[in-house]
């Protein structure tokens, strides 16, 4: 095949694939601006006859999605802060501080990755019930506070810091906390961003656990609210699309802004996930 033919075929293939991945998302946006019932016609309209924000108004005024948006935002932010606190110190210690049983504990943690999280969910629910944490924000946050993937990510990155740097600080009389805060943390910038975006997206998109723990409508996150809304309002397609836009857009924008860090984390995790 000549080069021109190949160029055409490859780029046409890419264009077709991109059209398939983007079409549903673009169409979601378009339908969300349509008048109620407008999308239920044949052939399916691609653009609204006259774009209106009516669905968004109804969504926030009548279905309580505004509240759920705030819940999702708070939970994802809190999960991110907690994950940074717990995983970064642990990841650093596994990489750079010698302590008895370090390698063995790390191997056990890695081995635990094979256990699906759902196995722990029922006893965890009962445990939280005993602690009075069912139907609370804290109950949603607890399983995401520390996780093996986050620790692994930070450990891999931290290993590249030269030991001499840490030793020099210790020789100068810095304590371990000082070494961590003033020598290690400043070099961890990129991996902190990676860990933050992974945790934020994971928490924002999570469904099963918040569905189990949050029974009160007022506490629902966006995915939980959207799922129950779509079971109630089967006919209101335009409203559902507006709800989907509100749910998807923040994470999509966040990804576009921090794409490089997300992809780096994905690749680091796949090396030995």
């Amino acid at each position, binding site marked *: 095949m000549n080069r021109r033919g*190949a*160029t055409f075929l*490859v*780029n046409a293939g*890419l264009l077709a*694939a*991109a059209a*398939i991945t*983007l079409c*549903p*998302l673009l169409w979601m946006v378009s339908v969300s601006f349509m008048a109620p019932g407008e*999308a*239920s*016609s*044949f052939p*399916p309209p691609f653009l609204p006859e006259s774009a209106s924000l009516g669905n968004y108004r109804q969504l926030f005024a009548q279905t309580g999605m505004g509240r759920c948006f705030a819940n999702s935002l708070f939970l994802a932010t809190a999960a991110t802060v907690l994950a940074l*606190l*717990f995983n970064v*110190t642990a990841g*650093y*210690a596994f990489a750079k*501080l010698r*302590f008895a049983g*370090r390698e063995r504990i790390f191997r056990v943690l890695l081995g635990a990755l*094979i*256990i*699906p*999280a*759902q*196995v*722990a*969910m*029922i*006893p*965890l629910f*009962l*445990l939280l019930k005993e602690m009075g944490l069912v139907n609370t924000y804290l109950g949603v946050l607890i*399983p995401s*506070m*520390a996780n093996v993937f986050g*620790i692994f990510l930070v450990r891999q990155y931290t290993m590249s810091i030269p030991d001499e740097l840490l030793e020099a600080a210790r020789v100068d009389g810095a*304590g*371990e*906390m000082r070494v*961590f805060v003033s020598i290690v943390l400043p070099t961890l910038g990129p991996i902190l961003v990676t860990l933050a975006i992974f945790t934020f997206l994971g928490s924002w*998109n999570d*469904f*099963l656990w918040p569905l*189990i723990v949050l029974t009160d409508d007022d506490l629902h996150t966006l*995915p939980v609210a*959207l*799922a129950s809304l779509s079971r109630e309002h089967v006919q209101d397609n335009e409203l559902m*699309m507006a709800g*989907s836009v509100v*749910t*998807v857009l923040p994470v*999509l924008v966040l990804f576009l802004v921090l794409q490089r860090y997300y*992809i780096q984390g994905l690749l680091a995790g*796949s090396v030995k*996930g």
Partner: protein
Amino acid sequence: MIRRGLEPGRAGWLFVSPALLVIGVFFFLPVLAALIISLTDFDIYAVADTGNLRFVGLRNYLRLLETPLFWKALGNTLLFVVIGVPLSIAASLGTALLLNSAVARLKGIFRTALFAPVVTTLVAVAVIWKYLFHTSYGLVNYGLGLVGIDPVDWLGDPRWAMPAIILLAVWKNFGYNMVIFLAALQNIPGDLYEAASIDGANARQQFRAVTIPSLAPTLTLVSILTMAGYFQLFAEPYVMTQGGPLQSTTSVLYFMYEEGFKWWNLGAASAVAFVLFLLMFAVTMVQFWLARRWSRA
């Protein structure tokens, strides 16, 4: 406040213990408890008062084997995995090869576009696709109509509901592995292709002799991770079909959720969770074993 003079060994423990404590109490302990609960008749009465709890041995597991819906859910989940994973990997590899091609234009933009579904919220895209699959107004049937295919009742027909969910899952997930494949393709040394072409290998022979063997370790890893993900099918049937029609999309996790949090049969639900875990574990081991045999052959 940690003072200077603290030796690294103590500091190490101090630094890891918060995370280990959380993982221990909120993951390892519950996993162990799940095993124990699966051997009891934990139900709504035990939720109210654990005094009602009785040890029943393997009865939950034996009863599962006699529950037709459990077998149905197992079959549905296996169908989802066996069809969905290869399709997903094929789409990932295909797009990665296109992106890696020397003649591809606007690579960065295409990569971002193809990856976008990965970061979207599963529940939201399930809501979108439920509409795309609408029998009369959905874009999927409209597209099929253009090439002369009659409308399919995607989510209302037990034969088509699972294929519809598989299409959604492939659309949502293939970008993830695409990025991994792309990185692996870029790591293949150019000399290998040069040597092959000097030996007279054409493009297709180069692909079989150089590309595929170089990708083998990545392929193993990707298929293990992807399979683990596909076994955890839940949100798609929850949003799109509620397990129907005729229970054709009830997955193992959906069954567990209903058993546990709708009927509060937590003992039985824990047994379901363990069966799923054992199944995933077994499949992973088989893949490792196959990969090792393959690499020796």
